[in-house]
């Protein structure tokens, strides 16, 4: 950022002051505004007479290659005179931009100013609406200064060319950011899952049916439990409780709870299993199996 610091005594007002008429006033005559393209002949471009009392109705267009020229004769009251200040002021009320171009003024009051797009600050180039071009004439002393709109200036840009912009670093709020989370893992439709669960579950009845077809039975159950009831009961119970240990490990237990339980159940299964299998062997030796 680049600030021009000025020195001047100033006073601050709490309310706006209203302008009224004064003794003599600054103004201008013989004013013309001309727009000339580069390479075109003299007096070939647009040329309009300016009036001090009311602005031109149509906006004046300034293209990239054009030169805008404003000539006028400044006068105090009705006599031509050189003022202290003679500016062409470009002002945009919407954005609050303003810039002044001083006229080159001769002693006779004859003044001219030339302007191309290169002279304009780049903030002006991106304006879409025409800016207000005002003539400002003022001087020391009591004569009333002149500040009125002369014409509207529209800055025409080649639509193919990018408008230069400037983004000064400014402290302010930044755009919000919301983290985009990864999608949660998804499962297939429950109906498909249930169909496959049904297929898997159908394996057990299929196995049972196949065994029945082959004549599988549990006819020796009573014989076995009669000859050695305890080992058989304990062995079967230990096998079921082994699965129970696994179930608990799957749901709530950790490894350190599981291992001692599995060791205890395993030892019981080993001892009772050897007795129960001894009974099975005795049945085989008796040619019952």
């Amino acid at each position, binding site marked *: 950022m680049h600030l021009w*610091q000025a*020195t001047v005594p*100033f006073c601050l*007002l709490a309310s706006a002051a209203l302008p009224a008429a004064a003794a003599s006033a600054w103004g201008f005559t013989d004013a013309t505004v001309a727009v000339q393209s580069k390479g075109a002949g003299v007096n070939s471009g647009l040329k309009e007479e300016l009036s001090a009392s009311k602005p031109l109705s149509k906006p004046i267009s300034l293209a990239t290659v054009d030169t805008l020229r404003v000539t006028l004769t400044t006068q105090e009251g009705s006599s031509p005179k050189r003022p202290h200040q003679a500016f062409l002021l470009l002002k945009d009320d919407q954005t609050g931009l303003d810039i002044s171009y001083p006229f080159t003024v001769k002693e006779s009051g004859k003044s001219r100013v030339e302007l191309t797009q290169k002279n304009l600050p780049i903030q002006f180039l991106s304006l879409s609406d025409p800016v207000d071009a005002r003539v400002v004439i003022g001087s020391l002393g009591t004569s009333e200064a002149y500040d009125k709109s002369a014409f509207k200036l529209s800055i025409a840009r080649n639509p193919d060319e990018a408008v230069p912009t400037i983004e000064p670093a*400014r402290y302010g709020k930044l755009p919000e950011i919301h983290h985009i989370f990864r999608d949660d893992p998804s499962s297939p439709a429950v109906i498909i899952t249930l169909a496959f*669960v049904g297929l898997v*579950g159908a394996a057990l009845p299929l196995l049972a049916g196949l065994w029945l077809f082959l004549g*599988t039975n549990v006819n020796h159950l009573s014989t076995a439990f009669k000859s050695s009831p305890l080992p058989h009961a304990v062995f079967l119970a230990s096998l079921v409780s082994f699965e129970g240990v696994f179930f608990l490990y799957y749901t709530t237990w950790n490894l350190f709870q599981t291992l001692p339980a599995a060791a205890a159940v395993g030892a019981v299964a080993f001892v009772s299993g050897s007795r129960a299998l001894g009974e099975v062997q005795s049945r085989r030796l008796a040619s019952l199996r």
Partner: protein
Amino acid sequence: MRWCLALLLCCLLAAVNALSSSGSRLLVVQEDSTEKSLYSKLWADLESRGYDLTFESPKSDKLALFEHGERVYDHLLILPPKAKGLGPSLTPKHILDFLQKDGNILLALSGKSATSSAISSLLIELDIHLSTDRSAVAVDHFNYDTISAAEKHDVLLLQRPGSLRPDVKAFFDATPPLLAPILRAPVTAYGYNPKEEIPSAEDIQATGSQLSLVSALQARNSARFTVLGSAEALEDQWFSASVKAPGGKKTSTVNQEFAKQLTAWTFKETGVLKVGKIQHHLATEHAERNPKIYRVKNETVFEIEVSEYAYDKYVPFEVPAGDELQLEFTMLSPFHRLALQPVRRTETSTVYGAQFVTPDQHGIFSFRVNYKRPFLTNIEEKHEVTVRHFAHDEYTRSWAISGGWVWIAGLWSVIGGFLAFVVVWLYSAPSSAANAIKKTQ
């Protein structure tokens, strides 16, 4: 012991008297001590606000901004010298060092004499440019005082400045990132050298609102530096003068109020932010405060307490309309940037809070509040936390995932089949078909 108590009381009294948030020792650098009476209302104003004023001439041998490497004064007010420079103890380097050490400076310039080269080289360091013609003053033929400057038009009448941008708090109205214009010249104003009769077109360097009459700089350490284009604006005669714009009515000036706002801001009586308690925790009841570690996808609450200093006390800080106090949750770059909303107010502060879900990315994150705005001291807070991944027992259990049911069913059907096989193997009698095969053998 009694002596100790007396000392303590003195300290307390000093603390009560110092109304600025950063100390009350104010050095006024003024070349001509006879000019002191020109600004008597300003001095009375400052003294009534609790400042200890020390007047020194830049030529004085005693004048030193530092003693043993520490600041001797908290604030510095420099009135324009007529001499070429500000003397050996106020070189641009000394003044910048003063700023570096959190000292605040109000520099007034004057159109009456040429600005000294020491001052313009100081201002260039801060990217504030004076006209190359060092005796240039600004005039405006539309907004001048017809009573005191009917001929020369060099007493400008200005409206009180509004806010700089819609989202910036207005400190100076009735109510570069570091550099901000407080008061701009009217659009029809321009600068010229009063020694020349009529300025030629080439001599006019800056016009209209490109000219700043009062500019402010707040350094990164929040030390403040204000350049006032007109020392005369602080004089008694303009504090309660009546002026008349061309064709306007007679009105009285409000320079006194503006001078108060300007000195109050420069010497850190206004626009000073203080961060109180900062808290972050899980959004569950009775959660641990400010934990070192969070998990991914935790619902988290962050709260920050902010107060603003207003002349003599801390008041709850309110974010201007259109602006936001923002929280960033960052690891290298922000994952979240959220607006902090006021949650509750205490007597001296506002608590701002936001609730969000930590991102699904583990690493070292930080809660950051980086609030830098024109005319307000900077808030820069950074609180580091670890965001860990799910622990092995924190994932969804397999039975809760419908896609896993097929595998679970398979597992249990194998277990059931195994148990059935064991029973069949242990207790099955040979079937008749099997006996028939045996017999043939």
